[in-house]
């Protein structure tokens, strides 16, 4: 599973963080950082993160 975040679209809302904290984090500068190839066991959480992103900036491949 590959996670892609369109950083031109992402506005660091941080909603994704609440659904999949293992994959998405907001750093101390308030910017999004994320794990691009998370473990398959996190798929549900990542799907949910993609759903709750207000900007719909997250896509999942594979």
């Amino acid at each position, binding site marked *: 599973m590959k996670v892609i975040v369109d950083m031109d679209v992402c*506005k*660091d*809302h*941080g*909603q994704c*963080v*609440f659904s999949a904290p293992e994959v998405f984090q*907001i750093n*101390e*500068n*308030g910017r999004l950082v994320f794990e691009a190839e998370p473990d398959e066991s996190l798929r549900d959480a990542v*799907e949910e993160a*993609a*759903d*709750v992103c*207000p*900007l*719909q900036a997250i*896509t999942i491949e594979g």
Partner: protein
Amino acid sequence: MGQRIVIAGASMGGLRAAERLRASGFMGEIVAVGDETHMPYNRPPLSKEALASEVTHEAVAFRLRPAVADVTWRLGVRIASADLAAGAVRLADGAELAYDGLVIATGMRPRRLPTPGPALGRHVVRTLEDACALRGELGPDARVLVIGAGFIGCEVAATARLLGADVTVVAPEAVPMRRPLGDDLGAALQRRHERQGIRFLLGRTVAAFLGEDRVTGAELSDGTRLDANVVVEAVGSASNTEWLDGNGLDLSDGVLCDNALRVEGRPGVVAVGDVARFPNPRYDGVARRVEHWSIPTDTAKRAAVTLMTDLGLSGHDPAPFTPLPTFWSDQYDLRIQSFGTPALGGDDIRVLEGDLDGEVVVGYHRDGALVGVVMIGLPSAVARYRAELMRGPAAA
């Protein structure tokens, strides 16, 4: 197998319901009926980013999970009526659809002003078509009159201003976004809008629109006359529930549901999204509708479990449904985020961090307990306040 669930309304709530039904293991047929011609799309950008650039379905369409590939979408057709006792809905084209389970996800439509005057040049913003029509009229030559100073009104005003238009906001309340933000934060946001060049004429309403075929201006309740060639009516919304008339439901404000999103006394019928009025034990037993983007996803999750139980496909999930309402609004470069239910804490509002004219966290309290937080900026503090609200009012 062999069971059919009909989803009424093919927007965010309808899509999320279909996804959650599949995720809960429903293997039967799912038919989603929607009167818009598009596959489900995201509305918030219609007053923000999309309105500022280009409004296309592609730009706002929701991602479709593979799990909903076999859902039947009947788009561009309205449900005219429902017979809940018989378990069937009738479509405007005359077709009848029987169901074993029904998801009500018909959402809201904008209220229109009964104000006399020409209709041409008057807009609302709910659908893609609405936003396209408005986008076509916005630009440096536009003189825009926004009626209503709630979130959608203020967002449209900000976007129109970014596009170079001359913008005036008229509303009956004394400060914008007063409900739920309160006087002080509302006034602070007004100052920010004014600094961008937006004019506010508050404490007034529009008495008449001026012009022959097309709006050329408006006369306000205090006699003021304004020039305007584009009018945006952002004066709230009404529930799309007429199709449910005649079934003995409480439709006084959306569809009354229990905490499991089941329509009162109707096993196999649930409501989700903007139209669902349900009690949230996080606060009290009062049923409320919540027009926030987080709610279609949260309610669909719970409603799918309820339907699975009612259809005899899974056991009962006894956990109470206590979603934390989450809302955001973007105006210029300002990110306004709200967690919880600030409107319940309107009598005890405190600045918790920062200051009202910069980055700020405002807390709303009921009986001394924190029930809602509104933040401007301060992204690194979001998680902390959200966690505090998740623990519940009792902990504050």
